[in-house]
């Protein structure tokens, strides 16, 4: 018989909460809940306006609360809620990045000028290919639940990169993932591939979070706690078996790498990026990458720095695999959204180089790279959504031939963004790659950096191929047209292009900000 006597517990005190520090997240979560009520109580005709106003106000309000907090936040950072949330300098940098990217993505999501009624289906329950489906394609309505879902996902991302213990991180991971699974399946046109991408993303995402969770459980067995700092302490001197530590770490990393679409865990990325509605792809590509790498940086630096010589070799292999897969398979793509997906896998490999250099330069370089890559990719997907024919977006590369003759402005903007992704000087992409790779060299990872340089040269080829196609080919007679976007999309693309340009010309202020502090725990 087991004696079922519960172990004695110390009395539990209510946690100290720094409301001013976590106010941006609370505003977003609150607005998302109000958005659910708006769905229930506001009439269908005025729902879109109400949701857009609410979401924009929420992000701007969160941004205001964020700016007010940053101006007088302590340099060292602080932890709150029983040390489960760390609001330190890297977290604040990522929060600022996420809020700005979230605003851009929200503008793309809210746009109704590019596609009549927006990029989202009028009613998700309608079966593709039926009479009702053709009717909804022509109708002006949309499933406005997208807006609260976006806010939930964004707040989950913000908690994810500030989470100081693994349980909080897991909950945040689900809060950011579950809305994304749903939003993937809500495209107005090409409903079949949209639903298919949702199924694939959901099944693989749930599989990966189960791995993350088992890693959490093994680390709990090892350290007796899931706080990253406690795991680091236990790793420095614990009698428990190292099998638990490294088994747990390995499973945890699989879950994290899946979210960041790194290397051999990338299988979902091209399918989901291609099938989702393009504004959601932009949101996922920019914001999920930022949040996931924020989490990876914190886990590696705070929790596992002392054992880094044990696991670093494995992550070297992962980084190399990611860069090679992204660059080589990107060459063979014929769909522009799939090509950008493979480009994001290659970029994840470059980011991992910076994250593996466990030094201040690596941390600040990776943060800066995330900022630049987020804005470039946001604007790129915004531009992709403008090239359309009668079937919706024209994403096949052959349809992009001679686009410069139809719309020189779009072709130049897109060419500039591709050059930034390739890392050409005078764009933010160059500065980002430079800081990340130099951090890698300083940390003695010269072979990895050489592989990264070769991979970025290979990747540059498929970016340049699109530029050559746009500028030096003759347009097809029945080719796509370029829609003149409304205010929202124009604002989002302009934001992305401006940040890409400014950070390429005067990167110093952002680099300074990225390098001001380390993790608090």
């Amino acid at each position, binding site marked *: 018989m087991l004696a079922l006597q519960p172990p004695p517990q110390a009395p539990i005190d209510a946690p100290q909460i720094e409301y001013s520090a976590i106010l941006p997240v609370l505003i977003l979560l609150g607005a998302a809940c109000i958005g659910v009520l708006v769905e229930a109580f506001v009439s269908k005709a005025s729902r879109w306006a109400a949701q857009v106003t609410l979401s924009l106000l929420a992000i701007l309000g969160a941004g205001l609360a964020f700016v007010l907090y940053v101006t007088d936040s302590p340099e060292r950072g602080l932890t709150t809620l029983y040390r489960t949330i760390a609001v330190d300098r890297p977290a604040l940098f990522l929060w600022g990045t996420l809020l700005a990217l979230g605003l851009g993505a929200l503008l793309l999501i809210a746009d109704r000028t590019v596609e009549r009624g927006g990029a989202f289906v009028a009613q998700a329950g309608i079966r593709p290919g039926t009479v009702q489906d053709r009717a909804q394609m022509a109708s002006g309505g949309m499933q406005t639940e997208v807006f609260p879902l976006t806010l939930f996902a964004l707040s989950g991302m913000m908690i994810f990169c500030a989470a100081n213990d693994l349980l909080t991180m897991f*909950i945040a991971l689900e809060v950011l993932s579950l809305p994304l699974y749903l939003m993937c399946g809500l495209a107005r046109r090409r409903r079949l591939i949209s639903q298919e991408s949702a199924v694939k993303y959901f099944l693989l995402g749930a599989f990966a979070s189960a791995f993350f969770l088992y890693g959490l459980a093994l680390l709990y*067995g090892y350290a007796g706690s899931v706080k990253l700092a406690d795991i680091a302490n236990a790793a420095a001197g614990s009698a428990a078996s190292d099998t638990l530590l490294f088994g747990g770490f390995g499973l945890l990393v699989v879950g994290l790498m899946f979210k960041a679409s790194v290397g051999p865990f990338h299988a979902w990325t091209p399918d989901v990026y291609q099938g989702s509605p393009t504004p959601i792809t932009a949101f996922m590509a920019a914001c999920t990458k930022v949040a996931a790498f924020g989490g990876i940086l914190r886990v590696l630096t705070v929790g596992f720095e002392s054992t880094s010589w044990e696991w670093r070799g494995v992550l070297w292999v992962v980084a190399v695999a990611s860069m090679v897969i992204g660059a080589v398979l990107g060459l063979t793509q014929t769909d522009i959204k799939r090509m950008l997906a493979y480009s994001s896998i290659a970029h994840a490999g470059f980011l991992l180089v910076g994250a593996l250099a466990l030094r201040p330069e690596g941390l600040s370089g990776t943060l800066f790279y995330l900022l630049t890559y987020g804005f470039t990719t946001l604007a790129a997907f915004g531009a992709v959504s403008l090239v359309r024919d009668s079937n919706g977006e024209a994403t096949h590369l052959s349809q992009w031939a001679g686009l410069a003759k139809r719309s020189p402005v779009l072709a130049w903007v897109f060419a500039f963004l591709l050059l930034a992704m390739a890392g050409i000087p005078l764009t933010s992409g160059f500065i980002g790659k430079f800081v990340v790779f130099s951090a890698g060299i300083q940390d003695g990872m010269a072979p990895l950096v050489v592989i990264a340089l070769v991979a970025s040269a290979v990747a540059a080829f498929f970016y340049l191929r699109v530029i050559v196609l746009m500028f030096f080919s003759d347009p097809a007679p029945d080719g796509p047209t370029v829609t003149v976007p409304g205010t929202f999309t124009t604002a989002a693309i302009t934001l992305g292009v401006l940040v890409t340009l400014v950070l390429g010309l005067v990167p110093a202020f952002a680099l300074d900000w990225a390098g001001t502090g380390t993790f608090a725990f």
Partner: protein
Amino acid sequence: MTPTYYLLLSALLFTIGAVGVLVRRNAIVVFMCVELMLNAVNLTLVTFARINGSLDGQVMAFFVMVVAAAEVVVGLAIIMSIFRTRRTASVDDANLLKY
């Protein structure tokens, strides 16, 4: 009864779930295998709570249950929508997106 047996059992359940995700073809069954993996984790957490003499692991198991319930809601909605369209929930038939 040493708690180690429970750890072995949960590792076995987790493995069965993971193999099931990889080899089964029906999306519902795949999803059930994911749930089996999550429940294997719960058993691990509760066993470690017992070994470590703290209640944290048991509380975490509650969090996992809540998340699993939320995941069921989202997952079944998505699988339903694709089943209504295609009249099948086989993951092999979802093959429009490739290469």
